[in-house]
């Protein structure tokens, strides 16, 4: 919907030089190699993947701007062609086939692929010109094709299975070879003179339906069977085969011996086969048709084909109406239908070339035009496009009288089935066109034709009036498909093109001659404006409202053309062009809000048109909810803009528009929920505009009667919400509650006499999170204000619908419904308010009895927001009712959804900042939620939300002022958990945790380099480090040792040495069970950190051991911790750490693995045992190393008789490493006694070994 902001072609332009240079390089190096004598020779085999990547992939990028290749083509294509020929000429000398491999491909294959890429990007007609035309290569290539043919036939009898196998050619190869042959047939000599050998009489190949004329040269005899074979293929080679056949047939010498006639007869016969002949595949017919189109096209300037024209026309037309199977097969193919159109087009063009027009020709042309007009409503776009183009080309060649008849026919079809209806009974209402009865496909075809005609300036100026009418209709064309989706964007696109073409092809005078009155579609515009102004206004509307980005851009381009070609005809034309900019319209919300407002500022007539547009399918009727919201608020802005604030009645427009919206609302059907939502959004938008309007009106007041009327409207809408159940209730609830909130300033201005108009703000702003502290004031002001009867009705209605509204769970709806809930509280009397608050508090405090009844998220939101209003509600202990309700619910309900809702409402209100201490326990608990269900780690949602809440809480912790008591308490309580989460394996959690950590970091600390240009560590952290990079993990590890945090936080953290344990608890999960990249990054960071200094190493190791001790019950930490300990052993780091008790480590490991059912855990334990055992004698910093190692060996010995085979294998693996290591030491020390033989381990499948065997092994290896 939104057009992309950055353009591919711009990128390509910028980088094209480098790309072209690279391409130039790779073309040479991939195909040739140095021959050792200073020159180069071709490679026989090419590494296919690299070559394709370096060439075809690069070429593909030029698809959009192929001209950039042009300057290089004369160098590249002949070079490729030469290499190809060189390969063909030399390949007979060596026939070595390398071992079957997919990595290498023969050179001719590679070159064909590259050439095909060129053809695809630049067009075959251009590329083929650079191929070698020397006649001597004709036979060479021909025989290569034939040889491949023979090969394919020999190896696999099956034609279809041949591709991509052994020596069979790929379609690219055939395509290029056939294309080349067609080019070589340009040879000026008679083919009979260059055919090397004539075939024998009996060797003449027979082709069904083809009669060989006499004296056919051998070359032709080879080419025709080849081409006719591939013309039936499904791939691209059909095009090349067609080109070859056309070229051959059109040769003068071939025409003379009758080849052309034979081929035409053959193709006609193929299209009209006898009953009994078998039906060919559909591609065959497409190929034959394209051949016919090809010869007709290339003969359109000559009379070569004149004799056949009527016959061809008849048989093609017959085909289109035929009832037999063949016709049906052909007509079911869209490309066949397109080819038929091309055949007829070329045919008619040839016919029209002769100045002599007889009756027969005229009838034929008329039939053809009729056929084109029919094809305009074809189901397939290419066919429609082809038909519209054909029509416009032919119309150019017709005489003026007939041409204008064609235009008339098109315009007439566009008027068929267009109904004009009036929306309301009011007299003078603008008629609205109803396009529901027309065929959108036909309209696309017709609109395209019209635009093509205009582009070629075919229609005479006298027809412009009707053309304007059709274009204006087309510009706003829309229909809903059966599934409700919007169709018709292609019609609008075509209309933009048409207007653009119209603007550039006709003079200002011609266009201005058309009176606005004569154009029925312009009826909604004031009759005084010129037709160009109407067009301009419509284009502005389209550019700001159309749902499709490309159409908005198209309209903007057409507008430029209109204004630039016809200066001073459109009001503020230049300003409009600058406002309705290519980039400004790219994003839809920006188009509707900024562009429309900008244009309205220039002249109100644009605004009026946009407002009309908003009230139609392009605004309120849009299918996209977000767009409806955007248009609703734009509607309000425009009304403010259009209001004449200087006049006596500044609010008249305001009032009118509300009446208009209400009028439209009353006409809606119940099923039109989207429209209802859109209209309510518009209503809210208008009311939102009230504060701005009131300020501009400078003291003039909106009279009370109007306010009462509007409040009455709102009450009516609420009543309607209560009584009616709509299809998508969440939309209605959302829009209605927004409306209620918008009405706040209106009520304030009217009931509070002393309220200054300058202080009015939008309702949604007043009730926003930052300002909730002001709520008590507003409430008390209302309490003392005068009471309007309408207000009371409104309040009571609101109270009625509120339970229903607040129980909705959709995010958007809950947000706005809770704001409406706040409105209810504000409007209620103090006693009433307390009652409601208590009732709601009760509701959210208790967990619902059954799963089916959930407390709506709206309740949580509104309570969190309403907290400032509840100051009077203290219970006995002095704590707040609202806070208590939240805490109570949290403690009784551990449902993930509930917790997320609670946290979300806490963080989107002020309650957290106002009472941080109350919620600290709740937050700490949230950080530790690891609920796992069938859907996986659902607790991560809670952790995620908690982190966000903490980010809100700590929002300005960096300020020196924010050093209240709660800060210390909260940091103490949460910091370790946050460190853990900042290194945990889930990306989502890590991302927000990173944000929280960033809040704690101080701005001042700069990297050691002391380079002033270096960004501070915090900026580096927030801006440049991804949350999965090695640098990120390294920074986390160094966070505290390097004093990266705010000083007052550092003092808190430094008093506790456990930070590393907290960090490690999360870190291990990334380093063990994260995705592969994450494991690599985090492990790299960890080892680097450990190697930096012995202190670091010790810090990490003791933290790991400590976690092992303290987290015994939590497998999610224990298992990765064990794994990482083992990893550090393998990396040779753990052994170097000081002061670790190995015996203790062994003991904790044993405890962890005690009676566990977790295989991963046992295996991790085994790895650690292995590490401990192996470190005997090497770990010089540890305590009790020998004892630990001995214990570890014992444990291994015990585990080798574990009941699970997998565990036993793991143990044996570990022992193998152990014993192998010992042997190596012994060998080095020269005590090669061979007494303990590690090789005793081999040769036995330990997973299924017998007990005695195991026992023997244990004794032998002294593992007891």
């Amino acid at each position, binding site marked *: 919907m939104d057009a992309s902001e950055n*353009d591919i*072609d*711009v990128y390509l*332009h*910028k980088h094209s030089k480098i790309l072209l240079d690279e391409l130039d390089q790779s073309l040479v190096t991939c195909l040739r190699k140095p021959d050792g004598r200073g020159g180069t020779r071709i490679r026989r085999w090419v590494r296919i993947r690299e070559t394709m990547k370096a060439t075809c992939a690069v070429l593909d990028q030029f698809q959009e*701007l192929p*001209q*950039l290749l*042009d*300057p290089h*083509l004369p160098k590249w294509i002949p070079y490729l062609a030469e290499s190809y020929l060189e390969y063909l000429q030399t390949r007979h000398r060596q026939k070595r086939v390398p071992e079957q491999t997919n990595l290498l491909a023969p050179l001719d294959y590679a070159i064909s692929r590259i050439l095909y890429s060129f053809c695809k990007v630049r067009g075959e007609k*251009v590329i083929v*010109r650079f191929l070698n035309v020397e006649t001597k290569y004709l036979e060479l290539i021909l025989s290569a094709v034939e040889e491949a043919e023979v090969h394919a036939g020999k190896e696999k009898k099956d034609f279809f299975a041949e591709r991509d196998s052994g020596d069979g050619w790929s379609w690219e190869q055939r395509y290029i070879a056939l294309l080349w042959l067609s080019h070589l047939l340009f040879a000026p000599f008679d083919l009979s003179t260059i055919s090397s050998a004539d075939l024998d009489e009996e060797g003449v190949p027979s082709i069904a339906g083809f009669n060989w004329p006499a004296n056919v040269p051998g070359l032709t005899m080879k080419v025709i069977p080849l081409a006719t074979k591939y013309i039936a293929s499904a791939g691209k080679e059909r095009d090349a085969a067609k080109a070859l056949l056309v070229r051959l047939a059109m040769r003068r010498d071939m025409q003379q011996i009758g080849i052309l006639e034979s081929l035409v007869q053959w193709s006609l016969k193929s299209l009209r086969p006898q009953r009994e002949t078998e039906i060919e595949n559909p591609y065959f017919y497409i190929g034959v048709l394209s051949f016919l189109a090809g010869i007709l096209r290339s003969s359109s300037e000559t009379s070569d084909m004149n004799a056949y024209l009527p016959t061809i026309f008849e048989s093609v037309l017959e085909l289109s109406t035929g009832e037999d199977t063949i016709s049906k097969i052909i007509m079911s193919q869209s490309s066949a239908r397109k080819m038929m159109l091309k055949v007829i087009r070329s045919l008619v063009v040839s016919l029209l070339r002769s100045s002599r027009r007889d009756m027969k020709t005229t009838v034929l042309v008329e039939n053809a035009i009729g056929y084109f007009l029919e094809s305009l409503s074809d189901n397939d776009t290419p066919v429609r*496009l082809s038909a519209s*183009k054909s029509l416009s080309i032919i119309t150019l060649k017709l005489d003026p009288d007939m041409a204008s008849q064609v235009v008339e026919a098109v315009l007439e079809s566009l008027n068929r089935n267009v109904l004009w209806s009036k929306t309301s009974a009011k007299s003078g209402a603008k008629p609205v066109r109803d396009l529901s009865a027309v065929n959108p496909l036909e309209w696309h075809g017709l609109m395209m034709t019209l635009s093509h005609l205009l*582009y070629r300036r075919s229609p005479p100026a006298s027809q412009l009036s009707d053309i304007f009418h059709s274009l204006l209709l087309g510009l706003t064309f829309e229909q809903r498909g059966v599934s409700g989706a919007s169709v018709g964007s*292609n019609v609008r*696109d*075509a209309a*933009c*093109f048409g207007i*653009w073409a119209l603007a*550039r092809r006709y003079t200002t005078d011609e266009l201005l001659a058309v009176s606005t009155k004569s154009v029925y579609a312009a009826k909604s515009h004031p009759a005084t404006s010129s037709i160009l102004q109407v067009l301009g206004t419509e284009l502005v509307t389209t550019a700001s409202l159309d749902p499709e980005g*490309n159409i908005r*851009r*198209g309209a*903007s*381009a*057409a507008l*430029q*053309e209109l*204004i*630039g*070609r016809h*200066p001073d005809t459109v009001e503020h*034309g*230049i300003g409009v*062009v*600058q406002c309705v*900019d*290519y*980039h400004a319209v790219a994003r839809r919300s920006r188009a509707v809000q900024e562009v429309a407002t900008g244009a309205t500022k220039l002249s109100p007539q644009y605004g009026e048109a946009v407002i009309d547009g908003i009230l139609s399918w392009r605004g309120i009727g849009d299918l996209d909810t977000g767009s409806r919201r955007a248009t609703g608020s734009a509607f309000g802005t425009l009304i403010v803009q259009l209001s004449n604030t200087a006049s006596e009645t500044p609010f008249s427009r305001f009032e009118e528009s509300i009446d208009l919206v209400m009028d439209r609302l009353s006409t809606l059907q119940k099923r039109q929920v989207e429209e209802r939502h859109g209209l309510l959004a518009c209503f809210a938008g208008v009311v939102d505009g009230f504060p701005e309007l009131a300020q501009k009106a400078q003291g003039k007041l909106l009279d009370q009667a109007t306010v009462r009327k509007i409040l009455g409207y709102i009450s009516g809408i609420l009543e309607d919400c209560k009584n009616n159940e709509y299809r998508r209730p969440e939309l209605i609830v959302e829009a209605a509650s927004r409306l209620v909130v918008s009405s706040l300033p209106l009520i304030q201005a009217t009931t509070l006499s002393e309220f200054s108009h300058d202080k009015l703000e939008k309702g949604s702003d007043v009730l926003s999170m930052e300002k909730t502290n002001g709520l008590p004031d507003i409430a008390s002001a209302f309490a003392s204000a005068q009471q309007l009867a309408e207000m009371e009705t409104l309040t009571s209605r609101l109270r009625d619908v509120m339970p229903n509204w607040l129980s909705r769970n959709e995010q958007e709806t809950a947000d706005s419904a809770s704001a409406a809930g706040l409105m209810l509280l504000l409007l209620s009397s103090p006693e009433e308010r307390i009652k409601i608050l208590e009732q709601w508090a009760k509701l959210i405090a208790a967990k619902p009895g059954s799963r089916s009844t959930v407390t709506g998220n709206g309740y949580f939101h509104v309570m969190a927001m309403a907290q400032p209003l509840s100051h009077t509600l203290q219970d006995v202990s002095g704590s707040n009712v609202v806070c208590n309700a939240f805490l109570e619910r949290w403690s009784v309900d551990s449902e993930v959804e509930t917790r997320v809702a609670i946290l979300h409402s806490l963080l989107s209100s002020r309650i957290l900042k106002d009472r941080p201490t109350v919620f600290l326990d709740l937050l700490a608990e949230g950080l530790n939620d690891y609920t796992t269900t069938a859907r996986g780690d659902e607790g991560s949602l809670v952790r995620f939300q908690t982190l966000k809440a903490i980010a809100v809480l700590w929002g300005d912790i960096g300020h020196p002022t924010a050093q209240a008591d709660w800060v210390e308490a909260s940091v103490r309580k949460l910091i370790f958990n946050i460190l853990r989460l900042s290194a945990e394996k889930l990306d989502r959690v890590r991302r927000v945790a990173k944000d929280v950590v960033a809040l704690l970091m101080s701005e001042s600390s700069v990297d050691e380099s002391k380079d002033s240009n270096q960004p501070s560590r915090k900026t580096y952290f927030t801006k440049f480090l991804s949350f999965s990079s090695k640098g990120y993990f390294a920074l986390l590890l160094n966070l505290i040792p390097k004093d990266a945090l705010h000083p007052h936080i550092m003092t808190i953290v430094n008093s506790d040495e456990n930070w590393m344990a907290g960090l490690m608890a999360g870190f291990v999960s990334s380093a063990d069970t994260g995705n592969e990249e994450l494991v690599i990054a985090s492990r790299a960071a960890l080892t680097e950190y450990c190697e930096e200094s012995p202190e670091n190493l010790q810090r990490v190791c003791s933290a790991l051991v400590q976690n092992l001790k303290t987290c015994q019950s939590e497998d999610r930490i224990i298992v990765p911790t064990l794994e990482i300990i083992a990893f550090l052993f393998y990396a040779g780091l753990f052994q170097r750490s000081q002061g670790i008790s190995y015996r203790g480590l062994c003991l904790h490991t044993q405890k962890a693995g005690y009676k566990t059912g977790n295989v991963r855990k046992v295996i991790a334990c085994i790895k650690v045992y292995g590490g401990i055992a192996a470190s005997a004698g090497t770990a010089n910093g540890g305590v009790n190393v020998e004892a630990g190692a001995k214990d570890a060996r014992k444990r291994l010995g015990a585990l080798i008789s574990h009941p699970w085979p997998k565990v036993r294998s793991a143990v044996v693996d570990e022992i193998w490493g152990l014993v192998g290591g010992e042997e190596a030491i012994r060998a080095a020390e020269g005590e090669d006694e061979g007494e303990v033989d590690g090789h005793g381990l081999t040769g036995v499948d330990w997973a299924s070994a017998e007990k005695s065997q195991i026992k023997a092994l244990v004794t032998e290896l002294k593992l007891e």
Partner: protein
Amino acid sequence: MLSILRKARLKDKEMRVLMLGLDNAGKTTIVKKIMGEDVNTVSPTLGFIIKTIDYEGYKLNIWDVGGQKTLRSYWRNYFEKTDALIWVVDTTDRLRIDDCREELHGLLEEERLAGACLLIFANKTDVDGCMTEEEVVTLLRLNDIRTHQWHVLPSSAMTGKNLNQGMSWVVEDAKKRLFLY
């Protein structure tokens, strides 16, 4: 839709030429002169005017943009992008040559104009005491331009000097880049 248009434009040999420069440089006069219209009735252009010039079988759609600050609105649109830029310099206005340089270099940095060639008309050379071609090159630091093909021509809109040569340079350059085959 766009590919149809692109093909049609290639076939018709159409180009979009943007005519820019400080105000009072003589852009509109140049266009009028080329079109063969009366050049004595030119008043400052307020906005922009599009004219089509047929030149050697090429259709040059010239967008004559008013001399206020150059506006990005004109740089490209949905249907076409800019193929050539014509920058007009008032060689009698030495005071504002620095402004002129800044504007020009700022314009060339705009990536949406990449791929357009640049013709510079050193205009009003029929007036005595105007800058020479070399002066224009140095003062505008044209040798610093790496991103675009450029060419300077001393011209006069009043006498018509070099105007056609300029057009033919644009067409020749386009032939080389856009309509080669």
